[in-house]
């Protein structure tokens, strides 16, 4: 269902992009990621190394990074609670990339990237442009059944998304963060997408990967002519990585292009949503499963 090209659009002359994306890459992780017998320490190390490898591969040549943040929905609490195991995760990551994340958050679920962009934009107000390395890490080292999928979001996709984004201090109207009750979340995301896209005609729209019924319900709320193709069957619901995977698929298909703008969106199971207009750098680096 959905979509029709063209998605490419050039930002209006005279406007400054708020979020210029220089790198977007995604790599799936195995399920289960580690066998049940693996110790927590070894699981932390294994995931940290994998995340660090991705950062090294896609951010090492991205110039000085001002902020490095890891966001997640499913990341084990043991890797983000200040415990020794959280330290092992960070050390393993740093052993591959050469730097620990400045901070980690799994508080905002799939919409973490939006909250992080908002926060970094706040820092940019004081110091000017900030280059952000953001990794969205959704791999469950415990392999709990809950995360494999359910009737709320369908089947899950696990992996690591690596983004390098220049965050500008202004303008402020390129990011919309909202919240709704769980029962109305999909509807509210749709309504917000309607108001956000109406003033940005022609821009491609990346929406979360959901099963058909949810997608259909979302699509009742706004003009879906520019929505990206449905990649749920290919990737599953991949949590906060969905809009970035959607973008990668469109880039791979030639229906999105470096130098253009598009709209990305995510919805959290607790009803938060993030919508942003981003600008793809003309020299954008992108890779899906290591394929450039």
């Amino acid at each position: 269902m959905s979509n029709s090209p063209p998605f490419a659009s050039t930002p209006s002359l005279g406007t400054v992009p708020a979020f210029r994306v220089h790198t977007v890459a995604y790599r799936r992780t195995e399920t289960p990621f580690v066998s049940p017998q693996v110790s927590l320490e070894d699981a932390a190390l294994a995931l940290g190394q994998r995340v660090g490898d991705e950062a090294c591969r896609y951010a090492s040549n991205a110039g000085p990074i001002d902020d490095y943040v890891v966001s997640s929905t499913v990341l084990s609490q043991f890797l983000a609670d200040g415990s020794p195991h959280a330290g092992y995760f960070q050390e393993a990551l740093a052993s591959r990339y050469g730097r620990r994340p400045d901070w980690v958050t799994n508080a905002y679920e799939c919409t973490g990237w939006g909250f992080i962009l908002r926060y970094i934009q706040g820092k940019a107000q004081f110091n000017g442009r900030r280059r952000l390395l953001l990794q969205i890490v959704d791999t469950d080292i415990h392999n709990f059944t809950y995360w494999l999928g359910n009737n709320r979001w369908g089947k899950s996709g696990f992996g690591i998304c690596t983004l390098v984004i220049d965050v500008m201090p202004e303008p402020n109207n390129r990011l919309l963060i909202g919240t709704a009750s769980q029962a109305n979340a999909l509807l509210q995301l749709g309504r917000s997408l309607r108001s956000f896209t109406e003033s940005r005609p022609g821009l491609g729209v990346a929406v979360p990967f959901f099963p058909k019924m949810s997608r259909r319900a979302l699509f009742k709320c706004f003009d879906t002519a520019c929505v990206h193709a449905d990649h749920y069957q290919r990737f599953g619901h991949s949590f906060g990585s969905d809009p970035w995977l959607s973008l990668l698929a469109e880039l791979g298909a030639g229906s999105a292009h470096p130098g253009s703008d598009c709209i990305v969106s995510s919805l959290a199971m607790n009803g938060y949503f993030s919508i942003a207009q981003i600008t793809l750098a003309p020299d954008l680096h992108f890779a899906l499963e290591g394929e450039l």
Partner: protein
Amino acid sequence: MKNAHTCSLLLQRNPDHNRAIPCSARNLPLFETHDYARRSVYAHDNPTPVLVNNQQYYTLLSTLARHIWDSCGEQTLILAQVRMPSIDLALPKNLLDPRVTLGAHLSNEALFWAGQIPTPVVWISAEQIRRDLWDGGDNRLHIAAWNCAPTPAISEWFLPELDCLTAQVHPSPVHEPFTTSQSKCTHVQG
């Protein structure tokens, strides 16, 4: 560098006056036998009681945020270290406010802001509060504040708000660069 006011508070009672919290309460639903097995792999003995459930934990954080804005001013930035995720419970709206950032390892961010702006910045470490038998932690809450009036002492801001948890000022090992092992409110180099 600016001075930080710090304190550590030990929570000793649940808000329901020690009515038992079901021990089966978990942050994540367990559906199958192997889920229990996987959980048991990383089970650990922790004699510290589980005092709050997810709802009470969020209420605590939300109350602290509201109280900080009442005490220090509406412009105060809050960086709160929390243990997540919790399923099927939305964060209170005031914790989604742009003045609040939730995550782990936020101490350096707090220091960044403290040095950058003249207005108050408050860092809260709440990730050691247990709400599941699986959780590590010691039920201690650490707080640091910058750019705030030196009096009243920081612990005096919060103790009345935490009465239902029988919070006590408590000695704390060094947890972050700006916390101290002293048992009462103090000023340290941040």
